[in-house]
């Protein structure tokens, strides 16, 4: 060959002192380019922590502090008040009705969007997001306008003795409206990412449509579905605006927990108001813990990802 390889350099392996042989004037001041300097970092972190304390943690603690201001007996008395109990029952009932319905709808919508092509698909996706961009109060008003006594369907409903507005059906409808996107939004990107490959495999192995859905499609999205249901439930129990408009706020009958809190607070019944509020806070904390647990344990199954 014309250009023989140069012989391997007979260099001794560089010892620990070798690094010091090079001048390292800037060594102390060097930091990775994507990292801020220590003072900058301290200021940023302190700012974030302060913000969290003021905006999130302090109010949360004060909820419990106010609720227990008259001691435990006062707290228990406030929660066992018939009106409070009625509000709790109603809230649970609304959640039990609206969350499964929304889960079903979200699953069906995500399935249709991810697995099929149909005209108007992008419009459909946009409409699912509508509740995110509409003020809940407007949503409530729309239901009053449609289903109320003077609404479009009012005469028909009255003729058949059906009460929608200022009753349970209206509250459930309004709650469903504001929580529609939660499940669908979790499932659509995941199911789109997963595509139809698994379903085709199941079908080619002889599975029927139902078998494919129960044994393949649903298990593939179960954690994302649970995640969406969790968020949906938290919002359903905490919804104020839309429900306030359609419920009519009949004490002991159509007051949900958030509405009850507001009424008690306006009556300067602080302990009772915060006692009920503390239940909502506990719900929020439980949701947060479960959500974190899901994200930690099944993070990869929640998010769209390649292959297996």
């Amino acid at each position: 060959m014309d250009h023989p390889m140069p012989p391997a350099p007979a260099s001794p392996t560089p010892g620990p002192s070798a690094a010091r042989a090079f001048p390292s004037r800037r060594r102390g001041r060097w930091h990775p380019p994507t990292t801020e300097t220590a003072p900058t970092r301290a200021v940023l972190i302190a700012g974030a922590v302060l913000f969290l304390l003021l905006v999130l943690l302090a109010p949360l603690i004060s909820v419990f502090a106010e609720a227990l201001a008259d001691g435990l007996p006062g707290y228990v008395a406030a929660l066992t008040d018939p009106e409070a109990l009625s509000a709790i029952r109603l809230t649970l009932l609304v959640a039990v009705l609206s969350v499964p319905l929304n889960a079903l709808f979200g699953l069906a919508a995500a399935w249709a969007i991810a697995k099929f092509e149909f005209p108007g698909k992008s419009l459909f996706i946009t409409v699912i997001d509508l509740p995110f961009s509409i003020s809940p109060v407007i949503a409530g008003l729309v239901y009053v306008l449609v289903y109320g006594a003077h609404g479009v369907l009012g005469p028909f409903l009255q003729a058949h003795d059906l009460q929608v507005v200022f009753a349970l059906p209206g509250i459930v409808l309004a709650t469903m409206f504001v929580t529609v996107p939660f499940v669908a939004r979790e499932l659509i990107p995941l199911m789109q990412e997963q595509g139809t490959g698994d379903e085709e495999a199941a079908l080619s192995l002889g599975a029927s449509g139902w078998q494919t859905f129960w044994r393949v499609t649903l298990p593939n999205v179960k954690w994302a579905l649970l995640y969406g249901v969790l968020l949906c439930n938290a919002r359903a129990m905490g919804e104020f605006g839309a429900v306030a408009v359609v419920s009519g706020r009949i004490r002991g009958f159509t007051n949900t927990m958030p509405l009850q809190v507001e009424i008690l607070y306006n009556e300067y019944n602080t302990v009772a108001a915060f006692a009920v509020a503390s239940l909502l806070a506990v719900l929020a904390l439980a949701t947060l813990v479960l959500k974190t647990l899901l994200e930690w344990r099944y993070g990869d199954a929640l998010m769209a990802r390649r292959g297996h």
Partner: protein
Amino acid sequence: MRIDIQGIHKEFGQFPALRGVELTIGDGELIALLGPSGSGKTTLLRVIAGLERPDAGQILFNGADMADTPVQERNVGFVFQHYALFRHMTVEDNIAFGLAVRRGRQRPSRAQRRARARELLELVQMGGLHHRFPAQLSGGQRQRVALARALAIDPAVLLLDEPFGALDAKVRKDLRRWLRALHDETGHTTVFVTHDQEEALELADRVVVMRDGIIEQIGTPEDLCLRPATPFVYGFLGDTNMLAVLVREGTAWLGDRALALPPAPPVPDGPARLYVRPHDFRFTDDSDGAIPGTVQAIRRRLDALRIEVSVGGHHGPVEVALPAPAPAPEPGQTVWLRPIAHGLFPGGQGVFSEYEA
């Protein structure tokens, strides 16, 4: 099982993915669908399986029209390009899936299903890994689980879409040999898709070369290598040189030289394309009917020398392969080239330019 594919057309929107595909696959045959990406291989496989409905044409299984038979009832074992293993099931449950979803008396007991799954795992050389999840397997192992899952339903035909596409070269080679052995053992009618010519030639009884939704050639690996039927096949299977020639009274003329070519089917008078593989050129001292050229460069390959010879006209340099120990000419030297095998196709230049050397 014998499969007849008759006049299959398939369009996606306005785009024709298959344009009149005719093919008969014999019982127990191992067939490769070979072609560049986008040539319609996957679509044809999916049409056979019933995952895609053709716009025209018929698929017959043992003579019976499958038009109204859904994929569930066609009894095909389909191995998907990305395996499509059920990620929430163990390897064993994946393999037993096709048995578990059967209804009524068709459905084997749990113990029978497990036994069958274990048996198949042994067959694909993965005994002991039945409790793993797909995410805990290597690519080659997933591939074999996908195959075992497809075999579990005792398919009448096995369809594999780029079965080794996602694997590295060494694993590919091993699995390829193994699939051939498995086929010889089980005797399933098998169709597999590949864009790797070496894989198709090594594995298949017959190879179907596809381009743009049509079949270019069907033949044994021997046929394809020695008798490429079209310029496309010449270019797609291995290296080739293309020279624009003029045919007059049965003789091919390169510029002002009449070429002496080995006997071949006659070609009508007019412009034509002469295909010669690099290793089908010989240097000769006898200038009569040979192609004159000047050596431009010599390149070393593992198994041969590649010699670039400029032949004048508006052709690029012609590549000639010389077995390594042969005495090589020097750059600048004038040489005479004689083809010992060639393909001569009527028509002008530039039709298949992307596959031409």
